[in-house]
């Protein structure tokens, strides 16, 4: 029982953590907390299932196809919902525009794909029971994404430019870095990471249009816990939440998973609004 909770919890937690990485990626270059990361996960799951399960294209092609859709959606989000409202960021209008972008893709998928969850195809057929791929694929993907991002930031010129824009977009512009281009790329990259969560976790989550809303919320809880901008915090928070939810599911029943999550979320936000790894508050006067 304990093993089941842990295995399933870590797998689900890895999915939340990846959604969290997607949140951070968008936030870093734009300082916008977007409502779309969960939808990216939904895209990964639904389009993965469509390409591989329905169209029966080869695995690698299906993967690229699903990722491609999400990258395009990430690009679209930046263009339509983020860029126009960046100038007046203190008005928090991005909350509404990114919410609109999230609802748009959700409705399109609901109409085209249907509102019933459909199974996600088995990818490799490796492992069975608790060692089944559906449990370890998301975890592997999550660590690859985390390490990949670390290497990207530390070892590549593009990564350095990302950090420069994240620290101070205007100053980096003065250095000749095209902050708009960096931002666009970061939204595309966030699309990739978010969709990776849905694709690799598809066998656990199923291909379901409403996945987006759930993942947006559950993927944000680790961010609230770890502090926005901290990938390490997202990872730790994600695994914590995954295991907590599985435990809650086992001990108090599935219906109250959301209640427990919400309780944790509110408690953390009210006690440590900046998260455990978050940055300090800016001066107001």
């Amino acid at each position: 029982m304990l093993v089941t909770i842990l295995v399933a919890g870590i797998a689900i937690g890895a999915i939340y953590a990846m959604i969290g990485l997607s949140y951070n990626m968008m936030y870093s270059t734009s300082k916008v907390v977007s409502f779309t990361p969960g939808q990216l996960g939904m895209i990964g799951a639904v389009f993965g299932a469509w390409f591989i399960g329905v169209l029966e294209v080869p695995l690698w092609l299906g993967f690229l196809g699903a990722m491609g859709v999400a990258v395009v959606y990430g690009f679209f989000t930046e263009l339509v919902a983020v860029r126009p409202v960046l100038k007046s960021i203190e008005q928090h209008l991005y909350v509404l525009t990114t919410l609109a972008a999230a609802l748009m893709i959700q409705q399109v998928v609901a109409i085209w794909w249907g509102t019933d969850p459909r199974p996600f195809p088995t990818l490799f057929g490796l492992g069975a029971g608790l060692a089944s791929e559906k449990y370890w694929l998301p975890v592997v993907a999550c660590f690859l994404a985390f390490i990949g991002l670390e290497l990207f930031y530390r070892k590549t010129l593009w990564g350095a430019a990302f950090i420069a824009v994240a620290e101070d977009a205007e100053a980096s512009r003065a250095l000749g870095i095209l902050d708009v281009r960096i931002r666009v790329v970061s939204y595309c990259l966030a699309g990739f990471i978010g969709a990776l969560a849905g694709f690799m976790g598809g066998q656990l989550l199923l291909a379901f249009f409403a996945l987006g809303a759930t993942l947006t919320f559950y993927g944000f809880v680790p961010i609230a816990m770890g502090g926005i901008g901290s990938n390490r915090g997202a990872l730790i928070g994600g695994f914590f939440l995954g295991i907590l939810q599985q435990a809650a599911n086992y001990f108090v029943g599935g219906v109250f998973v959301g209640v427990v999550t919400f309780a944790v979320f509110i408690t953390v936000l009210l006690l440590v609004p900046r998260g455990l790894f978050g940055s300090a508050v800016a001066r107001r006067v």
Partner: protein
Amino acid sequence: MMPTGLEAIASTDLPPLTRQRPRALWAAAAVIGLAVLLPAGVNQYWMQIGTLAFVYWVLIAGLDLIIGYAGQLAVGFVGLLAIGAYTASILCEKASWPAFAALAAAGAAGALFGFLVGLPSLRLKGFYFAMTTLGFSTIVTQVALGWERLTGGGIGLPGPIFPAPLDSPVGFYYLALGMALLATYLLRNVAFSNFGRGLVAVRDAEVAAEAMGVPITRLKLVTFTLSGILAGMAGALFAARQTYITPDAFTFDLSVLFFIMVLIGGRGRIVGPMIGTLILTLLPEIAAPLVMWSNFLYAVLLLLVVLIVPGGIAAFLERLFVKTAKGEGLEAPAPERLNAVLGQHASPKVLTLQGVALHFGGVRALDGVDVAVWPGTVHGLIGPNGSGKTTLLNAVSGFYAANSGRIVFGEADLAARPSADRAALGIARTFQTPRVVGNLSVLENAMLGAYRQFTTSFPAVALGSRHGVIEDCAIRQRAADALAAVGLRRLAHLRAEQLQHTEQRLLEIARCLVMQPSILLLDEPAAGLSHDEIEHLQALIEHIRSLGVAILLVEHHADLVFQVSDEVTVLDVGRVLAHGAPAEVRINPEVINAYLGA
């Protein structure tokens, strides 16, 4: 709708009370008449659509206060609707309560949960707060689904049935209409009151609101509670109209719909969101073939409204019907009007700072400063940039906490008091960069100064208390006097954002005067003023002093400081470099060396 006799209180040089134009009253009467007559003219189907619009409006009226006035992005109001609906339905079905008692209970449950939903808004902003409300609405439906014994789970339960004749479609239509009118009345009373101005101030200029003594915590929570009551009652009516409720009826899409109703109407307005509610309730009926796409269209609409018409219908209507107000320019200040403003002002109090130190990390912005400011005197505070002058003002007005030392005002030690309470003690301040509430009129901005002197309670104001209206008129008069005193009288009807920078400085001073402060902290009031304007300012400061107010003046115009001050303190790198009468300080060699120059 204000009793006309009260108009007499308002003197003739006040700008017209734009909110109570007779034309608006006629329009309101026409709309109500139309709504009353509607059942005679249309079939039952359209009448029920009308009922739904009224039910939605009951909720939207409260949500407009939250989104429009307070500027809080509460995207999960469907949760409160659901709580009201389930409370009323459960009480009627399981406990056989009469429908009206259940309606009241739904309002009470809405109040409780509205308060809870509002709590996070005290610490969280923007996305974070939006997410808590979204989470809340998700939880409510999950609990409704899971708690089968009480809610019937996915099968649901019947809604309340109101007693005859309100159980017929026509009867229920009138019940909903009545509730909608009540909600409008509450919204209007709050919106045009002290509290409505306070909410807009919190939304647009939170720091200024604090400096004026607006108790942000209490104001937000009481507003969330009121909107919770409305949403809860709307829920009970919603359940009665549906006749049967399941968790499916309360999807997040409905929340988005509510949000758009307010936004498309225009945030912080009343008629706009009303039209928005009507249009969006009707839209699915007119565009029936598009029903499958309705949620998608709502999302598109949300995006378009935010990006293209952020002011919504209201801004559009105002462009059509309200003549664009033009400024007639500044006029000479009339300081003698101050006597009426500061007439019964609070007892004279001494401000003393003893050994005040304040560090930012390793930087000692203030390093053991002693200053005393006496009633009826002007205390000039000068020093080079970065010497700690503004930091000192911030420590006194409570935006920074001193690391050590004591700040005492009259009898009160200020250490543990938040800014808003310090304002209530009679500490008024202006800011280096003027902080006015751009979307309020100049007069309303000035009226904000008296926020803490307004004694009528929020519930009384919401219910249309006559005492509240009278108080408001008195404050309006005082604000008009204060504007005349600084020379802004003819600009009183403009939105504050239309003023020039220097005019906004004067407005800040007027707003402070309306507070009837014991001490006035001025942060570089002469910056950017012309020679003549500085002379006016000097006369104004001298007149304020003559009425017994203490003034702490931070300023770079050395001439002004030395002419107007009774005492001067010179700060340098957080320490007092010199202190004394202006004539002594002016010739102090250290001061000349560090600041004044040869």
